[in-house]
């Protein structure tokens, strides 16, 4: 039987149909010819006669081809130039089908592409989720962009944020013209006792209008009334949603219930909705009730929150508040000379520190994705070479260049979608891991890292971009295949054009360069982290555990009661087996700041508005220094006797204090006092000891001047108890809890943590971003190595015959090895040079994170360059050795 299909195909040349459509037409026409042939045969025609007559059907087949070509553009009634939907999708569907088939036939290649892309996308998805949660996801309040943090700043006191004072609260609120509302709050916590068990609950004292400013309504009951928000106002309380669920299981009868907060009775008037997530962590709201009388001002301590009028900018609002603030000076309120209002977008106030770090991480991980794309592009180019024959055939049977590009792009898209999907899943896993590493206390609770539409859009966008990046250039290049040349070539190993080889080299160079930039950045960050870790904290954190105690004012009204309680508690704790030393302080290292202003006797007296850095003031027991492990440079701690009231007053100061007031001369025997602010200065206090600075605000933070005062002189009602054990300090907690319950069952122990934990937590962000960046760099380096390996292996494969001939002619394997290695290392070297220039430029962005490590640190640069070069050498060496071991006979027989 004649080969109808073959004949028809030849006649159809020039009709430029797409593959699937063409196959159908060929099928159909062949069937027709066959029917005709059969009919002719059965009517008695000879085979050759039947064949001749059947083929006459195809006469004027140019007409056929011409007609079919016209058909590609649909006739009326469809509008000209727009393909019908059905045709478009069936075309796309057949493209996808073909793409899946092609992908399936090369599983190793496809898995490699999907794997590399997934790696790149995973990192981006994870980091973007974090960036999204921190900075992009809107706060859960209506028109949250109008909410702004209100505070005061005092550069002369070395304080960026001082808090807002009571008089400012009232006058700002009454005289501003740029806010719809202003609310203030003070974070505090309460002992919430309930039939013999006590717990410490975080709360806030808030002005009556905070809910209104946030734009939320109580879930149950009512908001505070303005008349409840006054000094000595009624004891009313709003419960946070979680506390209500936890303690009262969502019982709606909770309204009117009376709670014991710090031994005082408070009536529940309402429940907050779940979206009232601000102030952070506050589960109990009580009215703030501050006195507006300036004479009763208690300093700067309030947090403020304003809702800007629509269309008002933060700058405008700040200028307006400054006007109000300055006007207060004229009316005699001198305190405002040193402070001025400072307004910060709400989110930046709490997360501003993370903004740059997360941008840098996003940048780093984007580079990883870029390298992955470069790698995939190189793979595709190489494969495009191998596919030249296939493409040539398709062009020869009439596929247009656009058609070939479309098919290749569809393949890339299918690969990208697969890689992207795997990447996003992987990224979610990474994210879960990363979140579990974040200490719960260091981020506001209103942060949410869940997936949202923005995250989905980002993933689609990067996957699509990646597909374009790695797909377009190779696709365009592949479509330029010269059909006749590729078909005449021996076929399987169609070689790459000069242009394509150039592109491949450029890709290798850029991979090395990018990997080097990331590695230098990672090297510097890790070095900085190591440097921070080796900072002397000024205390010995091992085997120390601390917890907080807060005595309710009602029950412990008298100074002596409070002092006696703490002394009794410490005495009992000292007797617990395993306890080496015991002390107490208002603020342990990394445990918060209480500031005050001091002056030295032999220095000029300072007035309220003189330049005077704020001093960290710690009230401590004599045993505290020993328990926390601080070092005395001179003098001694205050003694038990000196600690008693009415005794001569003594204090211990730190190095920074001595440096500031006496230029580093010995402070022992010198006298200091509170400046007193607006009130009278205190009596002079004698300095009896000088300690090495403890890194109170974190290992990488600057220390402020510090003064330690004995407890009885300032009989506060809160203390952090410090226990130093001989073994695991966690073991000391159960007996301590027992002792506390024995002394007063209504007092809870809170913030129970070892000093090592506190230190670790204080470093979590630096640890996290340094190691994340290092992980990116390692990934980048591995990807680059894989890329080089692939390209050089391919080049060696291409040259098998040539190398074979040369070896047959007497070239030594060593020579071949050197040559292949040499040409590969030239690319690596160029990449290193380009990367060095890039790194010099790029690491400036990291400067503020480097903690004293120079961004030009020669040791790190040298180490990284050597490391990357070594990886490059290894990636080159494996294929080079394969080249050197080519057997000339086999290579020549390969054809």
């Amino acid at each position: 039987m004649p080969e109808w299909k073959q004949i028809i195909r030849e006649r159809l040349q020039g009709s430029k149909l797409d593959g699937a459509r063409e196959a159908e037409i060929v099928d159909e026409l062949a069937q027709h010819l066959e029917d005709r042939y059969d009919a002719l045969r059965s009517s008695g025609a000879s085979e050759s006669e039947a064949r001749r007559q059947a083929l006459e059907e195809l006469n004027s087949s140019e007409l056929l081809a011409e007609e079919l070509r016209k058909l590609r553009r649909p006739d009326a009634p469809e509008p000209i130039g727009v393909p019908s939907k059905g045709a478009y999708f069936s075309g796309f569907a057949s493209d996808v089908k073909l793409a899946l088939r092609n992908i399936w036939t090369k599983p190793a290649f496809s898995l490699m592409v999907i794997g590399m892309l997934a790696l790149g996308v995973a990192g981006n998805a994870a980091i973007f989720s974090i960036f999204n949660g921190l900075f992009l996801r809107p706060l859960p309040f209506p028109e949250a962009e109008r909410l702004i943090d209100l505070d005061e700043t005092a550069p002369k006191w070395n304080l960026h944020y001082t808090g807002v004072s009571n008089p400012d609260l009232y006058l700002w609120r009454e005289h501003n013209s740029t806010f719809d509302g202003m609310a203030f709050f003070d974070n505090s916590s309460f002992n919430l006792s309930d039939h013999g068990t006590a717990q410490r609950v975080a709360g806030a004292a808030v002005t009556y209008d905070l809910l209104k400013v946030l734009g939320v309504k109580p879930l149950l009951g009512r908001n505070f009334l303005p008349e409840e928000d006054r000094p000595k106002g009624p004891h009313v309380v709003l419960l946070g949603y979680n506390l209500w669920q936890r303690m009262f299981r969502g019982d709606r009868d909770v309204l009117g219930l009376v709670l014991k907060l710090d031994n005082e009775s408070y009536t529940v008037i309402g429940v907050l909705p779940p979206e009232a997530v601000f102030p952070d962590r506050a589960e109990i709201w009580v009215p703030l009730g501050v006195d507006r009388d300036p004479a009763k001002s208690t300093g700067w301590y309030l947090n403020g929150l304003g809702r800007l009028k629509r269309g008002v900018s933060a700058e405008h609002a700040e200028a307006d508040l400054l006007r109000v603030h300055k006007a207060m000076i004229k009316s005699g309120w001198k305190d405002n000379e040193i402070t001025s209002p400072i307004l910060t977008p709400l989110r930046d106030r709490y997360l501003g520190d993370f903004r740059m770090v997360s941008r840098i991480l996003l940048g780093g991980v984007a580079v990883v994705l870029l390298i992955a794309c470069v790698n995939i592009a190189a793979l595709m180019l190489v494969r495009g070479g191998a596919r030249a024959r296939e493409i040539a055939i398709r062009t020869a049977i009439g596929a247009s260049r656009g058609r070939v590009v479309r098919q290749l792009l569809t393949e890339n898209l299918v690969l990208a979608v697969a890689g992207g999907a795997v990447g996003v899943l992987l990224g979610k896993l990474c994210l879960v891991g990363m979140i579990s590493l974040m200490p719960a206390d260091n981020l506001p609770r209103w942060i949410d890292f869940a997936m949202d539409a923005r995250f989905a859009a980002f993933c689609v966008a990067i996957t699509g971009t990646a597909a374009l990046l790695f797909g377009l250039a190779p696709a365009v290049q592949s479509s330029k295949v010269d059909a006749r040349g590729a078909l005449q070539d021996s076929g399987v190993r169609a070689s790459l054009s000069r242009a394509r080889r150039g592109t491949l080299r450029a890709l290798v160079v850029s991979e090395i360069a990018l990997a080097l930039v990331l590695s230098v950045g990672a090297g510097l960050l890790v070095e900085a982290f190591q440097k921070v870790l080796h900072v002397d904290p000024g205390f010995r954190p091992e085997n120390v555990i601390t917890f907080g105690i807060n005595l309710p004012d009602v029950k412990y009204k008298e100074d002596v009661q409070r002092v006696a309680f703490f002394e009794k508690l410490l005495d009992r704790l000292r007797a617990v087996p395993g306890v080496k030393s015991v002390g107490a302080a208002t603020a342990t290292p990394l445990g918060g700041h209480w500031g005050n202003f001091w002056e030295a006797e032999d220095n000029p007296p300072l007035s309220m508005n003189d330049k005077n850095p704020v001093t960290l003031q710690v009230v401590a027991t004599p045993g505290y220094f020993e328990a926390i492990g601080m070092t005395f440079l001179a003098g001694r701690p205050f003694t038990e006797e000196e600690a008693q009231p009415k005794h001569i007053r003594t204090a211990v100061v730190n190095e920074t204090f001595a440096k500031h007031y006496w230029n580093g001369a010995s402070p022992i025997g010198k006298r200091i006092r509170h400046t007193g602010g607006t009130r009278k200065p205190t009596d002079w206090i004698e300095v009896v000891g000088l300690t090495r600075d403890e890194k109170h605000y974190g290992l990488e933070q600057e220390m402020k001047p510090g003064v330690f005062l004995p407890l009885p002189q300032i009989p506060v009602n809160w203390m952090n108890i410090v226990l130093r054990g001989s073994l695991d300090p966690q073991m000391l907690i159960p007996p301590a809890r027992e002792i506390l319950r024995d002394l007063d069952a209504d007092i809870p122990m809170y913030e129970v943590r070892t000093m090592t934990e506190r230190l670790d937590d204080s470093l979590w962000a630096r640890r996290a971003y340094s190691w994340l960046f290092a992980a990116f760099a390692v990934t980048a380096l591995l990807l680059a190595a894989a890329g080089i390996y692939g390209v050089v292996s391919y080049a060696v494969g291409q040259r098998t015959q040539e190398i074979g001939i040369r070896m047959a002619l007497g070239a030594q394997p060593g020579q071949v090895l050197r040559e292949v290695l040499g040409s590969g290392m030239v690319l690596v070297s160029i990449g290193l040079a380009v990367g060095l220039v890039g790194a010099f430029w790029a690491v400036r962005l990291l400067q503020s994170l480097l903690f004293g490590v120079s961004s030009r640190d020669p040791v790190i640069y040298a180490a990284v360059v050597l490391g990357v070069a070594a990886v490059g050498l290894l990636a080159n060496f494996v294929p080079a050795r394969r080249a050197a071991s080519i057997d000339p006979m086999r290579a020549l027989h390969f054809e």
Partner: protein
Amino acid sequence: MATQPLDRELKKGSAELLILSLVESRARHGYEISKLIEDRSQGTLSFRVASLYPLLYRLEARGWIQGRWVEKAGQRRRRFYKLTREGRTVLAAQRRGWQQFAEAIRRITGIEYA
């Protein structure tokens, strides 16, 4: 061969009508359609592959007929074309038009004869 251009025009104008009529009652494949045209016109009209199939595809692209591959046991698969709803409307209109045209021709040519 002076009649050839006219022949072609006539065929072109009537071809659509012929095909639509043939697939009106049931679905038919290309060879069957060409065979029927040839048989029923007793050889006066015949379509070759080169003109029949482009026409079929064009009618299909316009949505007047719809082709479907059908496989019958023991036979090779064939593509059967059937009239669509839209094709039915077009066929009715074309029939009317053709009848009016033929009637007009008959009248004119009939009078000439008389």
